């Protein structure tokens, strides 16, 4: 049927391709850290699709298991690597199926979505990374990125808190970071056991011992929102401006493209406006309970 004279349709050209289409990728390596955290190195079956997946640390992909579901997972590899890596914690329905997969198996990927950490703006400045609980996946790729380009950053401080020592997965990584020049790593736990050698208490209790020049420090925070709020309060007291404090938020996500409405926080869509926000931008919407 001919289109006929144009009716009062919407203006603007429409891209015919669905942004929801997953791209098959093969697992080429699986590394396990403890029982329920696994890093999957993935290679797109169609190498020509790789340029579309160029990303900044902090951005995420939707990882798809056909017939099961799709989950938002940060990209933990280096942007210069040919393969893409996702470090996935097994918590529920979809991730439980991902846990059973290994080399040779195929997953779907679409992305990258959202924005990255401000790693360009942070060049030649000091960087303080504050992470808490189990939610450090979105920031560990950023730390690796800076160490791979060590000369471009000033003093790097990593403050990491866990509830119990067993939650400190990937411990060797912290040890490796600790051995780097001009670097401070502070590990702490709420519930120390007899072999725990680092600090005790929650992560925010250890801010005092961190030397920090507010005029040349960029802060990256990732973890439970209560921890982030405490950390922000202390950082403000120490003179760090809200423009230099960045948080990575987590919300329910069904689409990652701004359609499904699940990921909203006030006026922000965490999927397309975040997941990383300068605290200044969130303003009054960060810290209101139940928003």
């Amino acid at each position: 049927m001919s289109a006929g004279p144009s009716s009062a349709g919407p203006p603007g050209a429409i891209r015919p391709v669905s942004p929801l289409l997953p791209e098959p990728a093969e697992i080429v390596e699986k590394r396990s850290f403890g029982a329920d955290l696994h890093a999957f190195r993935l290679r797109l079956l169609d190498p020509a699709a790789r340029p579309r997946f160029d990303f900044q640390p902090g951005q995420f992909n939707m990882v798809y298991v056909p017939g099961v579901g799709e989950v938002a997972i940060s990209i933990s590899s280096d942007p210069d690597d040919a393969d893409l890596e996702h470090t996935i914690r097994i918590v529920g329905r979809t991730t439980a199926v991902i846990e059973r997969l290994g080399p040779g198996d195929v997953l779907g990927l679409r992305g990258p979505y959202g924005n990255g950490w401000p790693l360009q703006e942070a060049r030649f400045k000091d960087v303080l990374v504050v992470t808490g609980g189990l939610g450090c996946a979105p920031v560990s790729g950023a730390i690796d990125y800076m160490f791979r380009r060590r000369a471009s950053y000033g003093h790097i401080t990593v403050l990491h808190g866990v509830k119990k020592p067993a939650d400190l997965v990937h411990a060797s990584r912290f040890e490796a970071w600790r051995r780097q020049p001009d670097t401070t790593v502070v590990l702490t736990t709420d519930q120390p056991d007899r072999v725990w050698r680092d600090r005790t208490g929650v992560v925010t209790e250890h801010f005092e011992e961190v030397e920090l020049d507010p005029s040349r420090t960029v802060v990256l925070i990732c973890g439970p929102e209560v921890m982030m709020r405490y950390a922000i309060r202390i950082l403000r007291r120490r003179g760090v401006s809200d423009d230099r404090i960045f948080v990575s938020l987590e919300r329910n996500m069904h689409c990652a493209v701004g359609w499904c409405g699940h990921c909203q926080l006030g006026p922000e869509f965490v999927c397309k406006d975040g997941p990383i926000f300068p605290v200044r931008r969130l303003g009054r919407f960060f810290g209101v309970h139940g928003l």
Partner: protein
Amino acid sequence: MSHRRAEEPTPRWLARAELPRLVAALRAHGHRVLGPVVHEGSLRFDDLPASGELPGGWRDEQGPGRYRVSRRAGEEEVFGVVNGAGSIKPFVFAPREPLLQIEMDARAGPGRPFRAEPIRPDAERIALLGVRACDLAALAVQDRIFLRDRFPDPSYAARRGRLFLVAVGCTRAAPTCFCASMDTGPRPHAGFDLALTELGSGGPGGTAGFVARAGSEAGAALLAALALDAAPAEALAGEEAGYQACAAGMQRALPRERLPGLLYDHLEHPRWDEVAERCLSCANCTLVCPTCFCHDVRDEPALDLQGSVRVRQWSSCFDVEHAQVHGLNFRPHIRERYRQWLVHKLASWIDQFGSSGCVGCGRCITWCPVGIDLTEEVAAIAATSPP
């Protein structure tokens, strides 16, 4: 599809008895024609009978939590019912829509290679007859989300591009309506192919009919094909008077100029606790709302596990699991979910899409089982905060 507006069209006169000619002309252009049909006690868009006739004389009675339609003796209007629960939203943003077809190879278990193909909706050419100004405004709001944002949605675009919209302006408002305060009605301003105003008199010899205006090339071509006379001056005067009386008589309003600030300044307010005592979190308000766009996307695997379909389905910010992530629910209480709905509709929507998420259709008031009225909720908050 380009939006080319026709030259400022001469308003035409369509006698009421000639409405079937319009329907026939739309059908001749390949459209399936749907119009307001009373069905099981409410109004909905449904196929018009072969005759192209719409029964006259139906009227609605609406109030918070209350809706009745009945046939009135002595009334002849064919567009006498202002609106029903169903807006035109389902014709573009389908309540349930398969998006992707996934084919897997024969090997058992997850992790198999797969192919994913987009499913294009089999979009019919649909002409909707009797679209109110509020619903046209709501369609423009949804266009901003699904077509003009960073990622345009091909399924929505396919349906949207095949719609032919015949608007009908309102000369009578329901008590729940407040489009005038939202600047979206009662007169349809843009986004239609044809716009009609129904008048009980004003035609030659005081007859009943419609002032008809074209809003697009397709609309102008259709009007030209009907070879109608220009609308008489009395009809144009009657039309104008009808719109003014309708707007002036509206019983509800929102203080649009105080939004979004009023709600942003009161993210904590005792009224949220108070409304949470009444709200059932049933999600009716979001389902009837012509702008709400929240949905879930899920896999529906085939029984033989050789394939799966990714399906999008309407959901609601009132669903318990809407803001749930692993181990944490950001909005566990009704207080927080009602606040999300209202603050999003009336405030954050403006930051996100440059317009309010509310067009003043009043459906959420009528179809709330306990009669919660958003204009009253806003007024209660405003009362504690003089401008």
